[in-house]
């Protein structure tokens, strides 16, 4: 039951974040919404049924990798955003 709640939450966040990314125009807000969408996908993956006993370690490893990759890319996107603003452009 717990898992089903979080599965629903994950899917909700994924779609919410995804749609918001298209609707917002500000770079910083988009980076945040993309991160939320990604978190939603991770949550759905972890909460989905399938593991025999205990938590699926492969799914955990995948999500961990996803978290790190998301941080790396978000970090670069933020620096690009800041630099662009300093150069006088719009994001």
């Amino acid at each position: 039951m717990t898992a089903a709640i979080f599965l629903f939450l994950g899917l909700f966040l994924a779609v919410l974040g995804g749609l918001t990314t298209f609707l917002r125009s500000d770079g910083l807000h988009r980076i945040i919404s993309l991160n939320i969408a990604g978190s939603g996908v991770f949550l759905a993956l972890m909460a989905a049924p399938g593991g025999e006993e205990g938590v699926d370690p492969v799914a955990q490893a995948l999500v961990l990798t996803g978290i790190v990759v998301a941080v790396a890319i978000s970090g670069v996107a933020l620096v690009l955003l800041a630099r662009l603003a300093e150069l006088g452009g719009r994001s």
Partner: protein
Amino acid sequence: MVVLDALLALVLAGVAVATLNGLRRFRAVVLFVVFGLLLALIWARLGAVDLALAEAAIGAGVTGALLMAALDRLRRTESSRAVAGSAPSLWPVVLVALAAATVGMVAVLSLEPAGRPPVAFHLGASGVDHPVTAVLLAFRAWDTLLEVAVLVAAGVAVRAVGVVPSPPSTEAGPLQAGLLRLVVPVLVVLAVYLLWRGSHAPGGAFQAGALLAAAGVLVQLTRVPGPMDRPALWQRPAETIGLAVFTAAALITAALDVPLAWPEGWSKLWILTIEAGAAISIAVLLMRLFAGGAPVAAATSDPGKGRS
């Protein structure tokens, strides 16, 4: 317990909507950090302790720091506009998301159960006792190697885009210095502990690296100039040591027999060595992401284009 979980889910959903709603950037960033911490709680509720650690340290902590740093730079350049971009009403999106989630949940729950990768069966042969570490560093090591490469690329990228923004003119006061003396050693010890612990319990290179990065960001915030601000000989080796050790391990094992198959009996040593190198690099690279640019030699007063 179901009530707690339902409550937790509701609050997280609410925080997410609040984060995505509204125009003010600062508000969104702060709420996003809250989002990350709540998500960490949910990982813990699902039994994914490694993820809880990582989400708190990296997802909420580091990402929050990066967002704040970017926010600061954006504020300095743009005229005082609290409003950023356009923000249409979020309610239609929420409804669509609820509908999609319902459909999706029904679809997923109606799937026939399928087998999962046989981690427990091969855990003994992996060299470590913790399943997640075994997956990351033994069974799917190639993914982790590329992941470290992503971090290196991010560090190089940030240096390429521009130089570090000019640091504040005065050093932080005695309160911060005192805090530093207390907190940094604790973080370092915790990091080493987490690194070693990863071989038999939740922990590992990424969580350890994030803790070290947190310590580094504290130093970067309080010292003027910070460790990331001036070029120094240790920077590039520290950034690349993780990838170098991992790639060397891949090449050596490829030459010996099967690539990325750690020699029998020595697996744990190989894995810990790779993780140690990775943790150092992760820390330095995350610090570089926070610093937001390439280091500048002291004599230069012109913040021109980025230099290595």
